[in-house]
């Protein structure tokens, strides 16, 4: 095989420098179906990210009307019709599990397609490349301009300034969109414009502006190759059936120039389809040669497929010399067997089933979660009090949760074998011996409950008491059980 030997590599040995300077990548523009897919996904992802904070959702008077809102001061998370409380963070755990499994599933089906199409690093880098190309021109022009470093003209300086300004503007708006998820977006935009926003907003915009600018403008593929753990993990998770961007060397080799290939073919000699035009290398955003086989640096963006397809079409050969394929098929084709693709297999079925299971559990939990809740804590000191008439009283601290967006009237009952009476410190009223509480919307309320058993009913040992709260209007009920003890 014709391997590229980089002369600088040859000088690296134990006494050589510890590091290698980065070789700048100048990806060429390309068009084709994968490129179009990438544009579409980029528009979708960025559209969602930048615009979602402005989506409204009516939750009633006094409640925030932002569709997606992380309300840190009040410890609430809003997502359209869902409102989560701090004690419900396990939904996020579930979401993270689903996300991880989805990544595994994507990997089992199509290798690092997440990296190539959806990862924020890829999306923003791609956008930054587009800007760079628009301002400074395509691959050759950029290489030429960079090579002519010493002679910076007025025009060149203007180009550089323009590129970085656009990059910074995108980065700034990226940070700006981030903070909009944490407070009412239109208000914050106005505050930002009038320089009245809280300091923390400016700090976060600053941080995200800096990271976006550095990661997408300067570090680019270095993030994927040296910083991101996913390539290592995915390499361990993948199997021989996963579709990866593959150079079909069974078809491409032996590569030779177009002219030679035509001559050899005329003579009826076997010759590969690859004409060694290096188009696949020129377009690659990580600057690698996919013809060297699968490698960690490949983010599976498919741009080399588009590039090679263009070449193949031009020279009248079949497209997809580079394509999503697996190793099994390379060997099968060499043996003259038809390629097989197996998307549905135990691994993908397992991942899909796990995703469905976790999703179902989360959905069930979400649909059946109570919007009225009660927690009871028995007083420990004293556990029981004897009153002057000989009756026994136990006290409890009760926390009531009203997760609905409106105030409601709640009746409290305590049932048990002791025929006890119930008194609530701070009850708003008592109707037919039932203490009534007004629960403010979207809050928790702590109450002190006193349960008294008359002398003749004094229990010998601890007996259970059931506390029940009933929403008078909606009929919603929540209950908890604790114990009643004697001194």
């Amino acid at each position, binding site marked *: 095989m014709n391997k590229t*030997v980089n002369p600088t590599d040859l000088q690296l040995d134990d006494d*050589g420098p*510890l590091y290698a300077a980065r070789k700048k990548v100048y990806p060429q523009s390309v068009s084709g179906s994968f490129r179009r897919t990438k544009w579409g996904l980029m528009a979708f992802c960025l559209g969602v990210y930048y615009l979602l904070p402005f989506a409204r959702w009516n939750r009633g008077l006094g409640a925030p009307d932002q569709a997606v809102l992380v309300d840190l001061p009040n410890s609430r998370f809003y997502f359209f019709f869902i409102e989560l409380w701090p004690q419900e963070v396990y939904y996020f755990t579930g979401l993270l599990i689903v996300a991880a499994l989805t990544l595994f599933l994507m990997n089992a089906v199509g290798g690092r397609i997440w990296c190539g199409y959806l990862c924020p690093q890829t999306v923003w880098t791609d956008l930054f490349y587009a800007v760079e190309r628009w301002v400074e021109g395509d691959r050759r022009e950029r290489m030429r301009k960079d090579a002519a470093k010493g002679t910076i003209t007025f025009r060149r300086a203007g180009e550089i300034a323009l590129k970085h300004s656009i990059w910074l503007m995108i980065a700034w708006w990226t940070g700006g969109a981030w903070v909009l998820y944490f407070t009412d977006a239109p208000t914050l935009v106005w505050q930002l414009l009038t320089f009245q926003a809280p300091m923390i907003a400016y700090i976060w915009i600053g941080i995200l502006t800096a990271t976006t600018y550095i990661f997408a403008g300067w570090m680019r593929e270095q993030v994927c190759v040296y910083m991101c753990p996913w390539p290592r993990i995915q390499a361990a998770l993948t199997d021989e059936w996963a579709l990866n961007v593959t150079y079909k060397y069974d078809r491409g080799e032996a590569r030779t120039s177009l002219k030679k290939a035509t001559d050899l073919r005329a003579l009826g000699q076997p010759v590969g389809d690859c004409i060694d035009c290096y188009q696949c290398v020129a377009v690659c955003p990580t600057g690698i040669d996919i013809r060297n086989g699968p490698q960690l640096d490949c983010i599976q963006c498919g741009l080399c497929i588009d590039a090679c397809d263009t070449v193949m079409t031009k020279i009248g050969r079949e497209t997809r010399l580079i394509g999503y394929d697996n190793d099994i098929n390379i060997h099968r084709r060499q043996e003259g067997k038809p390629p097989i693709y197996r998307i549905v297999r135990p691994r993908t079925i397992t991942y899909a089933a796990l995703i469905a299971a976790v999703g179902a559990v989360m959905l069930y939990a979400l649909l059946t979660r109570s919007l009225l809740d009660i927690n009871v804590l028995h007083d420990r*000191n004293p556990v029981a*009090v004897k009153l002057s008439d000989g009756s026994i009283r136990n*006290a409890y601290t009760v926390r009531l949760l009203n997760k609905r967006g409106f105030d409601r009237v709640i009746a409290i009952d305590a049932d048990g074998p002791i025929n006890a009476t119930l008194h609530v410190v701070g009850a708003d009223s008592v109707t037919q011996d039932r203490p009534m509480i007004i629960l403010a919307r979207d809050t928790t309320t702590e109450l002190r409950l006193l349960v008294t058993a008359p002398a003749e009913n004094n229990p010998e040992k601890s007996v259970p008491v059931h506390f029940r709260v009933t929403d008078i209007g909606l009929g919603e009920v929540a209950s908890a059980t604790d114990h009643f003890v004697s001194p």
Partner: protein
Amino acid sequence: MTEHSDIDHVSGRATTGHEWDGIKELNTPLPRWWVITFYLTILWAIGYWIVYPAWPLLWSHTTGIWNYSTRAEVATDLANLEKIRGDKMVALGAASLEEIEKNPALLALARARGKTVFGDNCAPCHGSGGAGAKGYPNLNDDEWLWGGSLDQIMQTIQFGARSGHQKAHEGAMLAFGKDGVLKKDEIVTVANYVRSLSGLPTAAGYNAAAGAKIFADNCASCHGENGKGNQELGAPNLTDKIWLYGSDEATLVETISNGRAGVMPAWVGRLDPSTIKALTVYVHSLGGGK
């Protein structure tokens, strides 16, 4: 080139010269920025050692040049908290006791504040939950020596009982035996009579009529004709099931012979008015308040 220099023929790249079972390690140097970042983290760590407390020593630790200490941070946080609390305590001070109990927000604040203040000041005698002990009233029950209304509780907290404060509750159980007012057998008789008042069994052969007579002559002036007590004088109700010092004969004889005069300190001047209000509401809400 050193002796390790070696080119891998498959990739055409230099190897490190390390070989395991025929597998050679390619020399893949790190990018420069990576190495620089690595050295910067080392520098950062050294700076950190110098700036912040870092090294534990045998008897202490290095303090760093900025004198940073988490303890100082806590102190600042507490001071800030005190400031925030200050504003809320003003609202508490402005409201009447009844208003506080009717307003859920103020009630919650008063109970929270009252609970901490109770723990710091009252718990040594009355117990952390106000359960009391022998000689120290249980504040959860419904028996009050000096009255269990909001105002009465506040009065007691402010000035105490037998505390020496001029507005303090006065009145003590007299020492009928020590002072020679009653003889030993009379004390035993009246002790049994007192037990009978709350339905407790009496000693065999005790003279009920004599007990009633001794009680009427000596005790009724404070405890009332029926032994129902008198909150003006802090005289406990002797007919109920609650006994501050105990209800067995020996304890009663001891009480009657030597008297009782437990002291509740005055808190006015030691606690500020709104804190006393919070404490009052807290004690009242423990469950015994009238």
